[in-house]
Protein backbone atom coordinates (compact mmCIF):
# COMPACT_ATOMS: atom_id res chain seq x y z
CA UNK A 1 0.00 0.00 0.00
CA UNK A 2 1.51 3.30 -1.00
CA UNK A 3 1.69 5.96 1.68
CA UNK A 4 -0.61 8.96 1.52
CA UNK A 5 1.01 12.33 1.10
CA UNK A 6 0.00 14.86 3.73
CA UNK A 7 1.36 18.13 5.09
CA UNK A 8 1.59 18.57 8.83
CA UNK A 9 2.51 21.82 10.58
CA UNK A 10 4.29 21.43 13.91
CA UNK A 11 5.38 23.90 16.59
CA UNK A 12 7.88 23.42 19.40
CA UNK A 13 11.06 23.15 17.31
CA UNK A 14 13.15 24.26 20.29
CA UNK A 15 15.11 21.06 20.64
CA UNK A 16 17.41 22.54 23.27
CA UNK A 17 18.45 21.43 26.74
CA UNK A 18 14.88 21.80 27.95
CA UNK A 19 13.35 20.58 24.73
CA UNK A 20 9.99 21.21 23.15
CA UNK A 21 8.16 18.18 21.76
CA UNK A 22 8.17 19.37 18.12
CA UNK A 23 11.21 17.52 16.80
CA UNK A 24 10.30 14.20 18.49
CA UNK A 25 6.77 14.51 17.09
CA UNK A 26 8.22 15.14 13.62
CA UNK A 27 10.49 12.11 13.89
CA UNK A 28 7.48 10.02 14.81
CA UNK A 29 5.54 11.30 11.80
CA UNK A 30 8.45 10.78 9.43
CA UNK A 31 8.42 7.13 10.47
CA UNK A 32 4.73 6.73 9.78
CA UNK A 33 3.77 3.64 7.82
CA UNK A 34 0.52 5.26 6.64
CA UNK A 35 1.59 8.72 5.67
CA UNK A 36 4.28 10.30 3.59
CA UNK A 37 4.54 13.45 5.68
CA UNK A 38 5.77 16.82 4.57
CA UNK A 39 6.60 18.94 7.61
CA UNK A 40 6.00 22.66 7.93
CA UNK A 41 7.81 23.94 11.01
CA UNK A 42 6.31 26.86 12.92
CA UNK A 43 8.77 28.72 15.10
CA UNK A 44 8.71 31.62 17.50
CA UNK A 45 12.42 32.30 17.54
CA UNK A 46 15.04 32.34 14.84
CA UNK A 47 17.40 30.04 16.72
CA UNK A 48 15.06 27.10 17.27
CA UNK A 49 17.24 24.16 16.23
CA UNK A 50 14.44 22.41 14.35
CA UNK A 51 14.40 25.26 11.82
CA UNK A 52 17.75 24.11 10.54
CA UNK A 53 17.06 20.34 10.52
CA UNK A 54 16.29 20.10 6.84
CA UNK A 55 16.07 16.31 6.83
CA UNK A 56 13.13 16.59 9.24
CA UNK A 57 11.59 19.98 8.54
CA UNK A 58 10.77 20.72 4.92
CA UNK A 59 9.87 24.39 5.27
CA UNK A 60 9.61 26.76 8.23
CA UNK A 61 7.76 29.91 9.09
CA UNK A 62 7.89 32.28 12.01
CA UNK A 63 4.58 32.69 13.81
CA UNK A 64 3.54 35.42 16.23
CA UNK A 65 3.81 34.73 19.95
CA UNK A 66 0.59 33.67 21.68
CA UNK A 67 0.57 37.06 23.40
CA UNK A 68 0.03 38.79 20.04
CA UNK A 69 -3.47 37.35 20.00
CA UNK A 70 -5.67 35.03 18.01
CA UNK A 71 -6.29 37.38 15.11
CA UNK A 72 -2.55 37.72 14.45
CA UNK A 73 -2.10 33.96 14.54
CA UNK A 74 -5.04 33.44 12.21
CA UNK A 75 -3.71 35.94 9.70
CA UNK A 76 -0.28 34.31 9.71
CA UNK A 77 -1.70 30.79 9.35
CA UNK A 78 -3.83 32.03 6.48
CA UNK A 79 -0.70 33.24 4.69
CA UNK A 80 1.21 30.02 5.40
CA UNK A 81 -1.67 27.80 4.38
CA UNK A 82 -2.06 29.51 1.00
CA UNK A 83 1.48 28.39 0.21
CA UNK A 84 1.60 25.05 1.95
CA UNK A 85 -1.94 23.62 2.04
CA UNK A 86 -1.64 22.23 5.52
CA UNK A 87 -3.70 19.15 6.36
CA UNK A 88 -3.05 18.89 10.08
CA UNK A 89 -1.54 21.19 12.67
CA UNK A 90 0.02 19.95 15.92
CA UNK A 91 0.73 22.66 18.51
CA UNK A 92 3.18 21.52 21.17
CA UNK A 93 3.43 24.36 23.68
CA UNK A 94 1.19 24.79 26.70
CA UNK A 95 1.14 28.56 26.22
CA UNK A 96 -0.14 28.45 22.65
CA UNK A 97 -2.86 25.85 23.25
CA UNK A 98 -5.45 28.33 24.46
CA UNK A 99 -5.39 30.12 21.12
CA UNK A 100 -5.24 26.98 19.01
CA UNK A 101 -8.16 25.43 20.89
CA UNK A 102 -10.22 28.56 20.25
CA UNK A 103 -9.26 28.44 16.57
CA UNK A 104 -9.77 24.70 16.03
CA UNK A 105 -13.21 24.92 14.42
CA UNK A 106 -12.39 27.93 12.29
CA UNK A 107 -9.14 26.44 11.01
CA UNK A 108 -11.05 23.38 9.95
CA UNK A 109 -13.96 25.16 8.29
CA UNK A 110 -12.12 28.09 6.70
CA UNK A 111 -8.75 26.62 5.81
CA UNK A 112 -9.34 22.86 5.88
CA UNK A 113 -6.67 22.47 8.55
CA UNK A 114 -7.47 19.71 11.04
CA UNK A 115 -6.20 19.45 14.58
CA UNK A 116 -6.98 17.19 17.50
CA UNK A 117 -6.97 19.14 20.72
CA UNK A 118 -8.60 18.95 24.13
CA UNK A 119 -11.73 21.06 24.56
CA UNK A 120 -11.46 24.35 26.42
CA UNK A 121 -13.18 22.73 29.42
CA UNK A 122 -10.72 19.83 29.45
CA UNK A 123 -7.81 22.20 29.05
CA UNK A 124 -8.99 24.29 32.00
CA UNK A 125 -9.96 21.33 34.17
CA UNK A 126 -6.40 20.00 34.57
CA UNK A 127 -4.79 23.26 35.57
CA UNK A 128 -2.61 22.93 38.64
CA UNK A 129 -4.94 25.12 40.65
CA UNK A 130 -7.92 22.80 40.11
CA UNK A 131 -6.15 19.46 39.73
CA UNK A 132 -7.54 18.18 43.02
CA UNK A 133 -11.09 18.65 41.71
CA UNK A 134 -10.01 17.07 38.42
CA UNK A 135 -8.84 14.02 40.38
CA UNK A 136 -12.13 13.75 42.26
CA UNK A 137 -14.13 14.05 39.05
CA UNK A 138 -12.09 11.46 37.18
CA UNK A 139 -11.46 8.94 39.93
CA UNK A 140 -7.72 9.36 40.32
CA UNK A 141 -5.86 10.26 43.49
CA UNK A 142 -4.34 13.72 43.63
CA UNK A 143 -2.43 14.83 46.72
CA UNK A 144 -4.77 17.06 48.71
CA UNK A 145 -4.21 20.63 47.67
CA UNK A 146 -5.59 24.06 48.23
CA UNK A 147 -5.16 27.52 46.76
CA UNK A 148 -4.07 30.27 49.10
CA UNK A 149 -3.88 33.98 48.47
CA UNK A 150 -2.07 35.22 51.55
CA UNK A 151 0.88 34.06 53.64
CA UNK A 152 -1.33 34.50 56.69
CA UNK A 153 -3.34 31.45 55.58
CA UNK A 154 -0.31 29.20 56.09
CA UNK A 155 -0.72 29.10 59.85
CA UNK A 156 -4.16 27.52 59.47
CA UNK A 157 -2.97 24.83 57.07
CA UNK A 158 -2.02 22.58 60.01
CA UNK A 159 -5.67 21.58 60.33
CA UNK A 160 -5.81 20.06 56.85
CA UNK A 161 -2.21 19.17 56.01
CA UNK A 162 0.75 17.49 57.60
CA UNK A 163 4.23 18.75 56.87
CA UNK A 164 6.15 18.56 54.61
CA UNK A 165 4.09 20.46 52.00
CA UNK A 166 4.77 21.39 48.43
CA UNK A 167 4.38 25.11 47.72
CA UNK A 168 3.66 25.62 44.03
CA UNK A 169 3.36 28.57 41.69
CA UNK A 170 0.32 28.92 39.48
CA UNK A 171 2.32 28.03 36.36
CA UNK A 172 5.82 27.00 37.39
CA UNK A 173 8.04 26.41 40.39
CA UNK A 174 7.59 24.14 43.36
CA UNK A 175 9.43 23.83 46.66
CA UNK A 176 9.05 21.39 49.51
CA UNK A 177 8.52 23.08 52.87
CA UNK A 178 9.20 21.14 56.05
CA UNK A 179 7.95 23.84 58.42
CA UNK A 180 5.43 26.69 58.34
CA UNK A 181 8.34 29.14 58.39
CA UNK A 182 9.76 27.59 55.22
CA UNK A 183 6.29 27.60 53.68
CA UNK A 184 5.93 31.34 54.32
CA UNK A 185 9.36 31.86 52.83
CA UNK A 186 8.52 29.92 49.65
CA UNK A 187 5.13 31.59 49.46
CA UNK A 188 6.82 34.97 49.14
CA UNK A 189 9.51 33.75 46.77
CA UNK A 190 7.17 32.02 44.39
CA UNK A 191 4.36 34.57 44.51
CA UNK A 192 6.86 37.34 43.73
CA UNK A 193 7.72 35.49 40.56
CA UNK A 194 4.45 33.96 39.39
CA UNK A 195 1.78 35.89 41.24
CA UNK A 196 -1.22 34.54 43.12
CA UNK A 197 -2.68 32.16 43.95
CA UNK A 198 -0.16 29.80 45.46
CA UNK A 199 -1.05 26.14 45.50
CA UNK A 200 -0.32 24.17 48.63
CA UNK A 201 -0.10 20.46 48.07
CA UNK A 202 0.38 17.58 50.47
CA UNK A 203 3.85 16.16 49.93
CA UNK A 204 3.91 12.52 48.96
CA UNK A 205 7.22 10.70 49.06
CA UNK A 206 7.95 8.07 46.47
CA UNK A 207 9.13 7.62 42.91
CA UNK A 208 8.04 9.80 40.01
CA UNK A 209 6.66 7.94 37.00
CA UNK A 210 5.29 9.49 33.84
CA UNK A 211 2.90 8.37 31.13
CA UNK A 212 2.57 9.65 27.60
CA UNK A 213 -0.97 9.01 26.46
CA UNK A 214 -3.51 9.74 23.76
CA UNK A 215 -7.28 10.00 24.04
CA UNK A 216 -9.89 9.92 21.29
CA UNK A 217 -12.23 12.41 22.95
CA UNK A 218 -14.95 9.78 23.31
CA UNK A 219 -13.67 8.06 26.39
CA UNK A 220 -11.13 5.72 24.85
CA UNK A 221 -7.46 5.71 25.62
CA UNK A 222 -5.74 5.05 22.30
CA UNK A 223 -2.33 4.48 23.77
CA UNK A 224 -0.32 4.88 26.95
CA UNK A 225 3.33 4.20 27.66
CA UNK A 226 4.75 4.59 31.17
CA UNK A 227 8.30 5.73 31.78
CA UNK A 228 10.57 6.42 34.69
CA UNK A 229 13.30 8.99 34.41
CA UNK A 230 16.69 7.41 34.98
CA UNK A 231 18.65 10.60 35.01
CA UNK A 232 17.58 14.20 35.01
CA UNK A 233 19.25 17.43 33.94
CA UNK A 234 19.75 20.28 36.36
CA UNK A 235 16.52 21.71 34.94
CA UNK A 236 14.67 18.61 36.07
CA UNK A 237 14.15 17.36 32.51
CA UNK A 238 14.59 13.72 31.61
CA UNK A 239 18.02 12.93 30.27
CA UNK A 240 17.34 9.25 30.02
CA UNK A 241 14.33 7.13 30.82
CA UNK A 242 13.01 3.60 30.51
CA UNK A 243 9.62 2.19 29.61
CA UNK A 244 8.00 0.35 32.51
CA UNK A 245 5.94 -2.75 32.90
CA UNK A 246 3.25 -1.40 35.18
CA UNK A 247 -0.29 -2.59 34.58
CA UNK A 248 -1.76 -0.63 37.44
CA UNK A 249 -0.34 2.60 36.07
CA UNK A 250 -1.72 1.82 32.60
CA UNK A 251 -5.09 1.06 34.16
CA UNK A 252 -5.12 4.38 36.04
CA UNK A 253 -4.06 6.25 32.91
CA UNK A 254 -6.83 4.59 30.93
CA UNK A 255 -9.27 5.65 33.63
CA UNK A 256 -8.16 9.29 33.61
CA UNK A 257 -8.24 9.52 29.81
CA UNK A 258 -11.52 7.61 29.68
CA UNK A 259 -13.39 9.45 32.42
CA UNK A 260 -12.25 12.88 31.29
CA UNK A 261 -12.91 11.95 27.63
CA UNK A 262 -9.52 13.48 26.95
CA UNK A 263 -9.03 14.50 23.37
CA UNK A 264 -5.46 14.52 22.01
CA UNK A 265 -2.04 13.85 23.45
CA UNK A 266 -1.04 14.38 27.04
CA UNK A 267 1.53 13.61 29.67
CA UNK A 268 0.50 12.34 33.09
CA UNK A 269 2.97 12.82 35.90
CA UNK A 270 2.48 10.52 38.88
CA UNK A 271 4.20 9.83 42.13
CA UNK A 272 4.16 6.22 43.26
CA UNK A 273 4.11 6.43 47.03
CA UNK A 274 6.10 4.13 49.25
CA UNK A 275 2.83 2.33 49.96
CA UNK A 276 2.39 1.64 46.25
CA UNK A 277 -0.38 4.21 45.70
CA UNK A 278 -0.32 6.37 42.59
CA UNK A 279 -0.97 10.10 42.90
CA UNK A 280 -1.42 12.35 39.88
CA UNK A 281 0.82 15.40 40.27
CA UNK A 282 0.31 17.09 36.96
CA UNK A 283 -1.36 16.61 33.60
CA UNK A 284 0.24 18.34 30.64
CA UNK A 285 -2.19 18.94 27.78
CA UNK A 286 0.13 17.90 24.93
CA UNK A 287 2.72 15.26 24.07
CA UNK A 288 5.85 15.30 26.24
CA UNK A 289 9.28 15.84 24.70
CA UNK A 290 9.99 12.14 25.31
CA UNK A 291 7.01 10.99 23.19
CA UNK A 292 9.42 9.37 20.74
CA UNK A 293 10.05 6.66 23.34
CA UNK A 294 6.46 5.55 22.73
CA UNK A 295 7.27 5.16 19.03
CA UNK A 296 10.36 3.19 19.98
CA UNK A 297 8.15 0.93 22.09
CA UNK A 298 5.72 0.30 19.26
CA UNK A 299 3.07 2.99 19.78
CA UNK A 300 3.26 5.82 17.30
CA UNK A 301 1.05 8.33 19.12
CA UNK A 302 1.66 11.31 16.79
CA UNK A 303 0.66 9.19 13.79
CA UNK A 304 -2.51 8.05 15.54
CA UNK A 305 -3.30 11.68 16.46
CA UNK A 306 -2.98 12.70 12.80
CA UNK A 307 -5.33 9.89 11.82
CA UNK A 308 -7.93 11.02 14.35
CA UNK A 309 -7.53 14.65 13.27
CA UNK A 310 -8.33 13.53 9.74
CA UNK A 311 -11.46 11.82 11.05
CA UNK A 312 -10.20 8.27 10.71
CA UNK A 313 -10.94 5.50 13.14
CA UNK A 314 -8.02 4.33 15.20
CA UNK A 315 -7.75 1.02 16.98
CA UNK A 316 -6.28 1.44 20.47
CA UNK A 317 -2.78 0.13 20.98
CA UNK A 318 -2.73 -2.83 23.31
CA UNK A 319 0.94 -3.48 23.78
CA UNK A 320 4.31 -1.82 23.97
CA UNK A 321 7.84 -2.92 24.60
CA UNK A 322 8.96 -2.79 28.20
CA UNK A 323 12.49 -1.97 29.19
CA UNK A 324 13.30 0.27 26.22
CA UNK A 325 15.46 3.25 27.01
CA UNK A 326 15.72 6.68 25.56
CA UNK A 327 18.96 8.54 26.07
CA UNK A 328 18.98 12.13 24.96
CA UNK A 329 22.00 13.70 23.34
CA UNK A 330 22.88 17.14 22.08
CA UNK A 331 24.24 17.78 18.65
CA UNK A 332 25.88 20.87 17.22
CA UNK A 333 24.47 21.75 13.81
CA UNK A 334 26.61 23.85 11.50
CA UNK A 335 24.52 26.57 9.90
CA UNK A 336 25.35 29.21 7.32
CA UNK A 337 24.65 32.81 8.18
CA UNK A 338 22.52 33.08 5.05
CA UNK A 339 19.98 30.71 6.60
CA UNK A 340 19.80 32.75 9.78
CA UNK A 341 19.45 35.87 7.62
CA UNK A 342 16.56 34.31 5.73
CA UNK A 343 14.53 33.30 8.75
CA UNK A 344 15.37 36.58 10.51
CA UNK A 345 14.48 38.96 7.71
CA UNK A 346 11.87 37.06 5.73
CA UNK A 347 10.37 34.96 8.49
CA UNK A 348 10.60 31.89 6.28
CA UNK A 349 13.22 29.25 5.67
Amino acid at each position, binding site marked *: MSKRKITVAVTGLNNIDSPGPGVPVIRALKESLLFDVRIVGLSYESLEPGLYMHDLVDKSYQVPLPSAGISSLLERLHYINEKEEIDVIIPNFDAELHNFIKLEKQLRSDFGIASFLPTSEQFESRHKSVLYEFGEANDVKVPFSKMIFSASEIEGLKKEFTYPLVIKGKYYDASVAATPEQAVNYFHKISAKWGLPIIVQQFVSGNEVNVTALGDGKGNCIGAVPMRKLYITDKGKAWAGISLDDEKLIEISNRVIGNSKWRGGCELEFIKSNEGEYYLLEMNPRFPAWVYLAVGCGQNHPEALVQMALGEKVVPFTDYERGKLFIRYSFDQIVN*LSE*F*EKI*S*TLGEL
Partner: protein
Amino acid sequence: MQLNKNIAISDSGFIFNPSTGDSFSTNPVGLEIIRLLRENKKKDAIIKELTGRFSIDDSTAEKDLSDFLLVLRNYQLLNDHE
Protein backbone atom coordinates in the same frame (compact mmCIF):
# COMPACT_ATOMS: atom_id res chain seq x y z
CA MET B 1 33.37 58.76 12.15
CA GLN B 2 33.86 55.46 10.41
CA LEU B 3 31.83 52.37 9.77
CA ASN B 4 33.58 49.40 11.26
CA LYS B 5 35.47 47.30 8.77
CA ASN B 6 34.20 44.03 7.36
CA ILE B 7 30.57 44.73 8.06
CA ALA B 8 28.47 42.65 5.70
CA ILE B 9 25.52 44.37 4.10
CA SER B 10 22.89 42.60 2.04
CA ASP B 11 20.20 44.11 -0.17
CA SER B 12 17.50 42.79 2.11
CA GLY B 13 18.69 45.16 4.83
CA PHE B 14 20.46 42.42 6.77
CA ILE B 15 23.64 43.69 8.42
CA PHE B 16 26.21 41.42 10.02
CA ASN B 17 29.12 42.52 12.14
CA PRO B 18 31.67 39.69 12.01
CA SER B 19 33.79 41.15 14.77
CA THR B 20 30.99 40.97 17.36
CA GLY B 21 28.73 38.32 15.81
CA ASP B 22 25.70 40.63 15.96
CA SER B 23 23.13 40.81 13.19
CA PHE B 24 20.77 43.68 12.43
CA SER B 25 18.00 44.60 10.10
CA THR B 26 17.57 48.07 8.66
CA ASN B 27 15.11 49.88 6.42
CA PRO B 28 15.96 51.20 2.92
CA VAL B 29 16.90 54.68 4.09
CA GLY B 30 19.06 53.20 6.86
CA LEU B 31 20.70 50.89 4.34
CA GLU B 32 21.47 53.81 2.08
CA ILE B 33 23.07 55.76 4.92
CA ILE B 34 25.20 52.76 5.87
CA ARG B 35 26.38 52.49 2.25
CA LEU B 36 27.26 56.18 2.24
CA LEU B 37 29.15 55.74 5.49
CA ARG B 38 31.09 52.91 3.93
CA GLU B 39 32.12 55.31 1.17
CA ASN B 40 33.52 57.46 3.99
CA LYS B 41 30.97 60.19 3.37
CA LYS B 42 30.81 62.79 6.13
CA LYS B 43 27.66 63.89 7.91
CA ASP B 44 27.11 66.99 5.80
CA ALA B 45 27.54 65.05 2.59
CA ILE B 46 25.04 62.44 3.73
CA ILE B 47 22.50 65.11 4.61
CA LYS B 48 22.96 66.55 1.15
CA GLU B 49 22.42 63.13 -0.41
CA LEU B 50 19.27 62.60 1.61
CA THR B 51 17.72 65.98 0.88
CA GLY B 52 18.62 65.56 -2.77
CA ARG B 53 16.91 62.21 -3.09
CA PHE B 54 13.89 62.74 -0.94
CA SER B 55 11.54 65.59 -0.48
CA ILE B 56 12.67 66.34 3.06
CA ASP B 57 14.17 69.48 4.51
CA ASP B 58 17.63 69.87 5.99
CA SER B 59 16.48 69.88 9.59
CA THR B 60 14.54 66.61 9.24
CA ALA B 61 17.52 64.96 7.55
CA GLU B 62 19.90 66.26 10.21
CA LYS B 63 17.67 65.23 13.11
CA ASP B 64 17.05 61.75 11.75
CA LEU B 65 20.67 61.20 10.75
CA SER B 66 22.01 62.26 14.15
CA ASP B 67 19.64 59.86 15.84
CA PHE B 68 20.57 57.05 13.47
CA LEU B 69 24.30 57.60 14.00
CA LEU B 70 23.72 57.48 17.74
CA VAL B 71 22.09 54.10 17.38
CA LEU B 72 24.89 52.84 15.11
CA ARG B 73 27.38 53.87 17.79
CA ASN B 74 25.32 52.12 20.47
CA TYR B 75 25.41 48.98 18.36
CA GLN B 76 29.16 49.32 17.90
CA LEU B 77 28.81 49.56 14.14
CA LEU B 78 30.34 53.00 14.03
CA ASN B 79 33.44 54.33 15.73
CA ASP B 80 34.57 57.86 16.18
CA HIS B 81 38.20 57.45 15.17
CA GLU B 82 38.70 59.83 12.34
